[in-house]
């Protein structure tokens, strides 16, 4: 078949296109999964949150301002969705298990993989014991590597508040710190 009718119709060009944005989102998946696991306390719940986040981002792509950071925008969606879901669980009377840590699927073999799983489970469990506002502040700075300025901007809080939340998170986690 000839390109019937499409002879005068050029295919939409792919510059900065939908394909581009989809590709960027695939690249962002590891970081989104890490952030979501740290928020929810489990890799499986985190992945559900990431899927929801990606779908929402694409369905609402017009709300993203081109030229601004796609990663920040998606992290914000993830955080808001996480808060919304927690609220709706509370409303519907579903009680979240304390520290629902499950085994993530990790690559590698034998003891090393088991160690990695255990370490992640421990870490997720410890983070889950922090109030959300301390957890997200600590995660953005220590895991995502954001500066205090960027993390404060992301959370829309003063930098002093951020500093104090991180310090309090560290106090709370001190018992699990390795012995010097």
């Amino acid at each position, binding site marked *: *078949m*000839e*390109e*019937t*009718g*499409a002879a*005068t*119709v*050029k*295919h*939409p060009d792919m510059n900065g296109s*939908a*394909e581009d944005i*989809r590709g960027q989102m*695939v690249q962002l*998946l*590891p*970081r989104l*999964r*890490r952030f979501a696991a*740290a928020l929810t306390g489990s*890799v499986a719940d985190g992945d559900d949150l*990431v*899927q929801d986040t*990606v*779908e929402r981002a*694409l*369905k*609402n*792509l*017009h709300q993203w301002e081109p030229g601004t950071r796609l990663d920040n925008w998606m992290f914000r969606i993830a955080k808001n969705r996480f808060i919304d879901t927690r609220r709706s669980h509370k409303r519907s009377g579903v009680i979240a298990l304390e520290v629902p840590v499950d085994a*993530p*699927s*990790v*690559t*590698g073999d034998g003891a090393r993989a088991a160690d*990695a*799983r255990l*370490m*992640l489970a421990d*870490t997720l469990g410890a*983070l889950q014991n922090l109030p959300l506002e301390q957890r997200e502040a*600590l995660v953005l*700075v*220590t*895991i995502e590597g954001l500066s*205090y300025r960027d993390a404060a901007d992301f959370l829309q809080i003063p930098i002093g508040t951020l*500093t*104090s939340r*991180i*310090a309090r998170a*560290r*106090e709370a*986690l*001190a018992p*699990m*710190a*390795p*012995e*010097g």
Partner: protein
Amino acid sequence: METEPTRETLSAFIDGELPPKEMERIAALLAERPDIGAWVRRQEALRADIKGAFSELMAAPQPARLVQAAKRTPISWRWHLGQFTAPRIWVPAGAALALGLVIGIALQPGSDFASRDGRMMAQGMLATALNDKLASDGYAGSGPRIGISFRSHDGRYCRTFDADAQSGLACRGDKGWAIALLVAHPQAESGGAYRMVGSEMPDTIRAAVSANIEGEPFDAGAERAARDRGWK
């Protein structure tokens, strides 16, 4: 007398977030004060452990469902319309943007299209999809996928659709769905396996929607309500 550093200061020191002078002062203090030094070292180790705990997760292959979500979830129509700034196609005197133009098609018996009273109408699976399907159905079941639904300036219900070989716009009249615009997919000749990714709508259709839409496209509720009323 040096002031005793607060936990906040020490915490910011660990993150390298103090002004340079203050960073130096704390670093010097750690040597003199084993108690503070030990706390800082433990917290530094903890910081590394927390980040390290995620390294296997970061290196693991991405779950297919997440990759699919990124590659397949339809992109919002508003974003597509925003992309359409100037026509990148040549349109004779703007006439092609008015409803009623059909870009060439081979009419075959048993196809999704029929000519009735000189008008091209949807039939078969296309007609069924236009009558019954919702955008949220995607490619579920058989037949084309529905994109967006809206009211046109002349008060008719119109819906965009995507099939294997072409995308189009159909508007509802007394005698069924009249095809207002039909665009063949450039790669359609490779066979039925080709699908447009997500809802990447051809520019011509986007343009026709923007030129003819009255108000906003239907949200899921309005779409369902119109469907349940039989598009009348």
